């Protein structure tokens, strides 16, 4: 997957135009629940709800979602496997509570990953940063992050083109040459990145830049009833979890 793919998917999402606050409340709210609530049945409920919202609400492409989810899920398997074993006096052995611990971790991590994937596939990172500024993150940091976002795609394209050019001249023929060629790409990329920064400085000066990066936003404001509905859904998940955990 190229760096631009997820962003492309997010900006073409059916839910792209939805207010960021609504999507953030869904994604981040359930993310918090996923790690705060007891994994069973709390995180499992969150996972189910997030899958439903992702595929039936935002209609994210299953094929794309699976291609993105594969990597974190791979990590998850290794991590959970570690919990299955213990190091005792007689060396490596199966941990007594291992399977249960591994399953709990797996459910929580799955639920949390589904929340992140929902956010990442429906909301371009730039929208989230704009919202973070409104929530009080320092303006300079948000501006730098937004400019980073802008530069990321340009530089990624340049790096990709350089890699293609190197491969065309057999730059990856051996591992040693590959490592060397990658070093050359990185070394070529840094001055290009800084030169771009200087050129953008000129370009912005020509647009009468006064030292602050003010722009108008055309984003829809969040709707209170929708926010309330989301909160109700989250309260319901909490209530169900507590009820189930009440014991016999």
């Amino acid at each position, binding site marked *: 997957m190229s*760096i631009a793919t997820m962003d492309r998917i997010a900006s073409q999402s059916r839910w792209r135009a939805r207010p960021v606050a609504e999507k953030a409340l869904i994604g981040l709210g359930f993310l918090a629940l996923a790690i705060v609530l007891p994994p069973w049945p709390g995180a499992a409920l969150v996972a189910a709800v997030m899958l439903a919202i992702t595929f039936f609400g935002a209609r994210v492409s299953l094929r794309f979602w699976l291609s993105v989810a594969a990597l974190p899920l791979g990590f998850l398997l290794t991590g959970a496997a570690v919990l299955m074993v213990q190091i005792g006096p007689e060396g490596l052995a199966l941990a007594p509570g291992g399977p249960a611990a591994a399953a709990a971790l797996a459910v929580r991590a*799955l639920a949390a990953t589904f929340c992140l994937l929902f956010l990442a596939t429906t909301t371009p990172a730039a929208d989230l940063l704009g919202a973070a500024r409104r929530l009080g993150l320092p303006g300079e940091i948000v501006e730098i992050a937004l400019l980073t976002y802008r530069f990321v795609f340009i530089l990624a394209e340049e790096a990709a083109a350089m890699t293609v050019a190197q491969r065309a001249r057999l730059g990856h023929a051996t591992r040693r040459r590959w490592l060397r060629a990658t070093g050359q790409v990185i*070394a070529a990329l840094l001055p290009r990145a800084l030169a771009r920064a200087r050129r953008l400085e000129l370009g912005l000066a020509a647009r009468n*830049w006064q030292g602050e990066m003010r722009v108008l936003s055309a984003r829809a404001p969040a709707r209170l009833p929708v926010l309330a509905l989301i909160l109700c859904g989250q309260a319901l998940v909490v209530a169900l979890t507590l009820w189930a955990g009440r014991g016999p």
Partner: protein
Amino acid sequence: MEGYLPASHAIGWYVAAAPFFVAGTLKIRKLVAERPEARLTLAASGAFAFVLSALKIPSVTGSCSHPTGTGLGAVIFGPSVMAVLGVIVLLFQALLLAHGGLTTLGANAFSMAIVGPWVAWAIWKLGRGIGLSVALSVFLAACLGDLATYITTSLQLALAYPDPASGFWGAALKFGSIFAVTQVPLAIAEGFLTVIVMDALAGK
């Protein structure tokens, strides 16, 4: 990855990383107040760090992986700025690539944007101070900065998931040995890579 740490640990690492992030932010604010265009340079540097962390490099053992760039970033930009740029990079890794996560951002920032760069920077300074060559200092800084990052990650995981029989240290050994298999060859590769980069940069 997302959801890997229990809530208390997630919050704890956010709190632990916060002072470094705030210190870096204050430094950047001062820089930007003096030279507004520093925003562009910092952003270009951050984007550079992100793109470099998405490049594929061959590891010594035969698999491929991604460089972390912590050593290179620390040597070029300094560790305090790297704390902020590193957090921005980690945020975009989560949102654009689904690598890492938001609940684990604090923990990852602590290991990759704070411990790694500070260790790399200290070794670079030390190496130059005791008269090692530039190449060797760069190699050690990048390689050990990388390792420090992964040792920190292992310890973070061990804290969260102590071994039922042998406790924290047993868990640290378990997580550490898994990382050792994958990360030691990669750290060596990244050390070589960083030397090549610094060498090529010096030639420009």
